[in-house]
């Protein structure tokens, strides 16, 4: 096959790898397709989804509803469950033939397994866990003006540049870095789940989306791993990423852990259908299960309201919640760093403040 990753002018279109589990599309697919649509418009190119699985043709159209012009479906029994071998082979084969300019992959536990494997095979760069993407330089400058402390006005930029500019947190969120991959194609990045905004679904666009079935070749020699079984955690996962209201607790609940979590639940209910999150200290102590963790190594959330109870506001925690629309913090230490990113701060004991808050909100709502 004549594939040469340095022949950068022969690559076009924006592609999104669309992950499915149990034959269902993931939320990250819709987020990435929505983001990919913007990039395709900036670049004046097509947006293509690529979907691997078994008997998944029927779910492909939905991707069109969020902006995909076309979905390539690779259907094969060996693709029913994710294995690195099968998925990397199929994805790389198609990419080598079709040469997309950009390939986005959700930074899930599966995407972060597949992405680097494919980037190495395709001989191109990969940027992990991106939280912001631009192609258009002017848009990138606008982004820097609002999201950095750089003096953008005094800097010069290559305005004609068409590299994908991939921005991600580094060093535990202490720094942001924008990465480019100028000499190789495709430009690949894995994108953090929950960060990109999902577009409005359009049935009309979904109906218009082109579905292309592709022949898949896989031989037993290609497969060196075997999935013996898949176990799902029995409990229901909390949907932190989709929640409008999140009340998170930190080590500040330590003197009465159960009482503190109960207060958080009641406050989340009082606001209306909220969910409870936690800092890593809470997860590490085993007070809440891991899927409740907010932060750099937990989830990135941007609810309408984020309430932090007894959380100090370490940079790794802020990395996951500082883009919430409205932040309320309760901490008995008035110098806690969490107050630096809170819209409203209450210095006080959460065990005293929160019960009053629950009552006051209920009263207001009933009034």
């Amino acid at each position, binding site marked *: 096959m004549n594939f040469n990753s340095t022949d950068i002018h022969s690559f076009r279109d924006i592609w999104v790898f669309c992950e499915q589990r149990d034959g269902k599309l993931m939320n990250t697919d819709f987020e990435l397709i929505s983001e990919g649509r913007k990039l395709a418009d900036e670049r004046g190119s097509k947006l293509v989804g690529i979907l691997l699985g078994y008997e998944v043709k029927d779910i492909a159209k939905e991707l069109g509803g969020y902006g995909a012009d076309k979905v390539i479906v690779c259907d094969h029994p060996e693709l029913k469950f994710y294995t*690195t071998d099968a998925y990397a082979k199929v994805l790389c084969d198609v990419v080598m033939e079709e040469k997309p300019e950009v390939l986005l992959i959700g930074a899930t536990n599966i995407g972060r397994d597949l992405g680097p494997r494919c980037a190495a095979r395709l001989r191109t760069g990969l940027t992990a866990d991106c939280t912001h993407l631009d192609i258009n330089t002017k848009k990138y400058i606008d982004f820097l003006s609002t999201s950095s402390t750089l003096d953008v006005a005094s800097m010069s930029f290559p305005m004609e540049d068409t590299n994908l500019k991939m921005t991600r947190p580094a060093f*535990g969120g202490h*720094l942001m870095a924008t*990465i480019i991959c100028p000499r190789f194609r495709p430009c690949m990045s894995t994108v953090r789940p929950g960060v990109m905004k999902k577009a409005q679904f359009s049935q009309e666009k979904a109906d218009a989306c082109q579905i292309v079935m592709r022949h898949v070749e896989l031989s037993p020699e290609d497969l*060196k791993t075997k999935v013996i079984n898949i176990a799902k955690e029995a409990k229901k*996962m909390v949907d932190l990423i989709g929640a409008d209201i999140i009340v998170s607790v930190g080590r500040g609940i330590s003197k009465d852990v159960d009482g503190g979590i109960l207060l958080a639940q009641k406050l989340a209910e009082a606001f209306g259908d909220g969910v409870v999150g936690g800092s890593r200290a809470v997860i590490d102590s085993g007070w809440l299960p891991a899927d409740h963790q907010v932060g750099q190594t937990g989830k990135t959330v941007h609810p309408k309201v984020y309430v932090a109870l007894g959380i100090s506001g370490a940079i790794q925690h802020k990395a996951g919640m500082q883009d919430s629309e409205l932040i309320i913090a309760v901490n008995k230490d008035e110098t806690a760093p969490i107050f630096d990113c809170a*819209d409203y701060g209450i210095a006080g004991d959460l065990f005293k403040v929160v019960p009053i808050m629950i009552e006051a909100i209920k009263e207001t709502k009933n009034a």
Partner: protein
Amino acid sequence: MRIYVCVKQVPDTSGKVAVNPDGTLNRASMAAIINPDDMSAIEQALRIKDTTHCQVTVVTMGPAPAEGMLREIIAMGADDAVLISAREFGGSDTFATSQIIAAAIHKLGLGKEDMIFCGRQAIDGDTAQVGPQIAEKLGIPQVTYAAGIKKSESLILVKRMLEDGYMMIEVQTPCLITCIKDKSIKPRYMTLSGIMECYSKPLLVLDFEALKEEPLIELDTIGLKGSPTNIFKSFTPPQKGVGIMLQGSDKEKVDDLVDRLKTKHVI
């Protein structure tokens, strides 16, 4: 059988982090630690050694002072160590790093039953890319996010974590496995005899000369210049404007808050 464990020395980002005026990290001001996920990889390898007496070789690519870290890991129970260190390798991104480490392991030899363990990700970049990229370059299968590794006969069984559960995966050797922290994998301490002996165990240094002829090395994709990805800009995010600290008694603060939320139509 031999297990290579790839470990990286990283700045401890859990404490205060100093940033230079130009937006780069002031590494000199921070403590260097063994990357936390790599501790799990070491422990998993040593557990297999406990029952099979295989050879455990620690591999790192980094500046010369990383030798101290390698000696510590030998004191925990590893047999020998490899330090890959050259000015030409500095500034490598994950593509370049994995190429160099893969070339080094290839040079040392990867037998039919051998394995490579990595941490899932290093806390300085959090990329989780080097492991899978080493595996691809060596043409061997990989399993990432491993919370448990069992070896029986020639069979390797790995518990691979997903966001909402896990998969049990059977993998053929040689293979590469990336390890995560888990309650069941508490890294052991250095032993007294280990500390006594750690300076008498072999430590091989591989420099540019030693690796440049290796078939896996492509001279145009190593180091800062050759890395496919480059930093275009780095910056610090602006501090969000400090909000309002509400005043008065607890009750007054809460009432003030609720009023403001009402005006904003939040409640």
